[in-house]
């Protein structure tokens, strides 16, 4: 029994600060992901396979691939993220971890922010890391590949953040996966447009600093607003269970 304070009622439980609590959430999520290596690998394999469908299904011609390459990679990254979103809260929901997260004294949106960052680290970041290889396979030149990776680096976290809203809204619903895609795809369009547009501008030799800054603005916006919406949606989904 707790020997430090009795009677129990007299003690005021101290809470851990916000930052350590966010760290703890992040660390636990990463640890769980690392215990399921295959799950880590799946979105990545999906990404590679989807990209390889385009030369096979449309055209392996160098000129086509150079022109469409950035778009192909971006669409594949988007689909791959979309597939992984369903897991974002599902396991936590099933085993009760999510209830405990909601009942932590720290603000929920910050804890959700930490969870989303964890999601990006295990699904988005690997995509950015293999993108150069795929960039070579679609005949992009070195500079374009660098810009492409940069746009993915800024853009994939936006995908995770916006996606977290959909994942939270569809939590616990039977039709989860497809519904989630329906809700989220329209919201992904601006990121997709600027992601590929920036690379295409770079291919055309135009300066891309302003476009990258705009993508950065998307990231800041998504990072500050999406966790609020996701936290609210999580409370609703839990309330419904």
């Amino acid at each position, binding site marked *: 029994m707790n020997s430090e304070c009795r009677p129990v009622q007299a003690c005021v439980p101290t809470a851990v600060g916000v930052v350590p609590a966010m760290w703890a959430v992040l660390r636990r999520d990463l640890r769980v992901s690392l215990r399921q290596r295959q799950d880590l690998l799946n979105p990545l394999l999906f990404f590679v396979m989807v990209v390889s469908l385009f030369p096979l299904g449309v055209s392996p011609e160098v000129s086509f691939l150079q022109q469409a390459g950035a778009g192909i990679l971006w669409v594949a990254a988007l689909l791959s993220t979309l597939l992984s979103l369903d897991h974002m809260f599902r396991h936590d929901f099933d085993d009760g971890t999510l209830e405990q997260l909601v009942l932590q004294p720290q603000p929920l949106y910050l804890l959700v922010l930490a969870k989303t960052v964890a999601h990006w680290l295990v699904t988005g970041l690997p995509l950015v890391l293999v993108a150069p290889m795929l960039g070579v396979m679609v005949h992009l030149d070195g500079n374009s590949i660098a810009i492409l990776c940069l746009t993915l680096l800024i853009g994939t976290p936006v995908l995770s953040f916006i996606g977290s*809203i959909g994942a939270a*809204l*569809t939590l616990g*619903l*039977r*039709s989860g996966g497809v*519904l989630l895609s*329906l*809700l989220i*795809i*329209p*919201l992904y*369009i*601006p990121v997709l*447009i*600027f992601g590929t*547009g920036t690379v*295409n*501008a770079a291919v055309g030799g135009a300066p891309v600093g302003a476009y990258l800054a705009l993508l950065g603005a*998307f990231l800041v916006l998504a990072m500050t*607003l999406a966790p609020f*919406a996701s936290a*609210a*949606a999580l409370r*609703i*989904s839990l*309330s*419904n269970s």
Partner: protein
Amino acid sequence: MRLMWQFFHKLGSPKWFYGIAGRWLPWLLISGLILSLAGIVWGLGFAPKDYLQGNSYRIIFIHVPTAFLAQSIYIMMATAAVVTLVWRMKLADMFVRSVAPVGAVLTFLALFTGAVWGKPTWGTWWIWDARLTSMLILLFLYFGVMALAAAIADEKSSARAVAILVLVGVINIPIIKYSVEWWNTLHQPATFKLTEKPSMPAEMWVPLLMVVLGLYLLFGWLAFVRMQTEILYRERRTQWVKAFVRP
């Protein structure tokens, strides 16, 4: 202030709203029909020809009002979503649910008429014009709202979840519009703008305005009818509905 609160409170009562809506319905329908029919007949039959596009431009008397209304319905839904989240008013949620399909149909009509217009103007049914593309994405947003509304069984959870989605959507609409326009300049500068030219003669814009207003009134009528149905369904276990349905 107190009066306003009372009004607000009353507005929260589905029974009160049901009665009020019933009294408004015939007026909305009649005035809406008269205005929009008159506008359409004037526009299609009597307004002058466009010196560039000839008669084919006349579809703007349908296209512009539907597109206009389709967009403003989403804004109205977002306003209702705020009311749902802040004051938890049932009627606001019923409004969102009732008008989302209406918005989707109007968006589709705007796209369809745009395509019909595109054929003689551009020589092709569909063109990835910035406005058309934005409307297409708006249609997707409507589909998302309808799908989520249908997926959650619990009334209260569904109301709040849909409200969040609508708000997230409305924050995204300007971003989507802006990025689609940027994307469009990157690929193909639009040859024709789909909406009015700056110097539109009164014989053109007056009927256009009439159709827009008429369509708003018809929308109001349809929204009220659909909300009444929704009210009867949701309040089916209350005394007043039982008494109303089986007098």
